């Protein structure tokens, strides 16, 4: 055990000792354990730090058993790990025609041939992940917090978000990561995100949305080392009603933890342009 890991043990002890609070974020479910949370000098929860999801949501938001690699030669290295749904109620409420498109996406997610295939999973092409997918990619992200603005910087590609906490502003343009307006509701950071283009997916299984997407995220600390993350997704072109995902985020306390470069545009150059390399 490293010195850095010890505070986590103390936190776990504190978690057991603390009386269970009743502050469940907005979704229904059993109350979550509560432990003391660090605060900034202005009294807000202190979200500064490096965070990461541990779910398999990036493979599929819904229930999924283990599955084979989409690339035969990758064997078990490329296999899908199993996971239970992070969607409240289990299933995403697609419109019928949208469900058909999702299933089509699923078939096209990994084309298996070189080139820049736009029908593939955008992650395969190293495109910006959008929201909420940025949160549960298999990469950490770092939060920087002041009393007026929050920045979230993701390890994946050059993804990041500026989240002003002042008066909300209209999205001035369509973008991959959307236009974020943040506010505090008690100890919950609420981020309202609009202005998305229709290009991103929610996972590797073809779950998707249109450019009518609106995401309302809720980050609620339940202790020094855990945030409860919820995202409510509205998109009347694609879904019959709003729906919500939730999962914990874990504070990374590894020794000297820091984001490293994952500049994936470089990692897909051979895939996208290999046929034009001089022979």
């Amino acid at each position, binding site marked *: 055990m490293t010195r850095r890991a010890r505070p986590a043990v103390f936190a776990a002890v504190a978690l057991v000792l603390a009386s269970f609070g009743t502050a469940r974020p907005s979704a229904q479910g059993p109350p979550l354990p509560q432990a003391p949370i660090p605060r*900034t*000098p*202005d009294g807000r929860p202190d979200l*500064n730090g490096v965070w990461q999801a541990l779910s398999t949501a990036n493979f599929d938001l819904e229930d999924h058993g283990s599955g084979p690699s989409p690339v035969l030669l990758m064997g078990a290295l490329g296999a899908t790990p199993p996971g239970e749904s992070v969607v409240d109620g289990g299933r995403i409420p697609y419109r019928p025609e949208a469900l058909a498109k999702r299933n089509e996406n699923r078939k096209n997610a990994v084309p298996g041939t070189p080139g*820049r295939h736009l029908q593939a999973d955008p992650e395969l092409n*190293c*495109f*910006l992940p959008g929201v909420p997918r940025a949160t549960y990619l298999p990469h950490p992200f*770092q*939060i*920087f*917090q*002041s009393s007026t*603005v929050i*920045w979230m*910087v993701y390890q994946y*590609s*050059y993804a*990041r978000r*500026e989240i002003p906490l002042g008066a909300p502003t209209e999205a001035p*343009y369509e*973008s*991959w*990561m959307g236009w974020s307006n943040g506010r505090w509701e008690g100890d919950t950071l609420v981020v309202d995100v609009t202005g998305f283009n229709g*290009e991103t997916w929610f996972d590797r299984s073809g779950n998707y949305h249109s450019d009518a997407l609106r995401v309302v995220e809720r980050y609620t600390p339940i202790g020094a080392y855990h945030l409860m993350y919820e995202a409510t997704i509205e998109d009347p072109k694609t879904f019959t009603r709003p729906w919500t995902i939730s999962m914990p985020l874990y504070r990374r306390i590894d020794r*000297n933890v*820091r*984001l*490293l*470069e994952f*500049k994936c*545009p*470089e990692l897909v*150059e051979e895939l*996208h*342009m290999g046929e*034009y*390399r*001089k022979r």
Partner: protein
Amino acid sequence: MTHRALASASLAAAVIALWPSLGAVTAQGPTARPFTPPPSTYSPPRTPWGDPDLMGVWDYQSLIRMERPADLAGKARFADEAEYRAWAKANAPNRDSETGVGAYNEWWNDRNFVVNLNTSLIVDPPDGRYPALTPAAEQRRKEILARARELASWEDYHALARCIASQTPNAPQAYNSGTYIMQSPGWVAIIRERLDTRLVPLDGRPHVGDNIRHWNGDAVGRWDGNTLVVETTNFTDKQRLGGMSGASVPAGIPFGSFRLVEHFVPVSRDRIEYYATVVDPTTWTRPWTFNLPWERDPDYQLFEYACHEGNYALTNSLRGERVQEAEAARTREAGK
């Protein structure tokens, strides 16, 4: 995806057409002292946890070039702002006459130049010119340039044309150079509108191990009074066409495994004197430093720079090269 991002990918073609020569280099002694920036008496406001507070958007458009122009040789500084402004008026760029693939007319260019009384960005060596390359680096530069003309693959393009990085350190660039400084206890984030976010820990930790190499290197920092000092190592040696983006950087300089020391010296509420010292004895015969003034720009809104997502120009450029090669081969064949 902006028009600008789309066109940035075709920048490589323009760069290749306009190789700037390294220019005359004055011989310099090999034993230069480590660079120390001039001190400032300005004391910035504090963050709630007591660090100097530099948060907000800054920009560093510059009319002053990396190297001192020949007609200003021997004159390190303008006498006053009036003399700078007179010179600036006479030397303001206008690219509206440019035509052809890769041309950037004035529509592209932010012209919000920060006043700078220095006549070159390079302040050390004191003649305002790059020091000489080592013979090995000069050889490598020639090889890089020869390969780049061939455009055999994406690796022969600048990292910016590949949407990988605008690279470190940042020299002035024509547009989208707005940079957000964000701070948290123990950290400074340097968030550039173009692609890169540099995260600088201030807790005295060591650099990452030798096997981890980054396009923007691995930064660690500390406060020296009110000055933020950042040391960056672990750069990849895959940089091409000059390690820095932006104007007036000689093409083909083989930036590789160098050490970068940056000093961010706040001199007023709205101005940081930024100094970047490049230490790389395998490439340069002595360390050198440039000084770029940063100015606060509260009206500047950083937008998403989704560069790779729409980067068709790089593919099309390579494809064009291969088509031309095939046509040339057919012509040769027909002439036999």
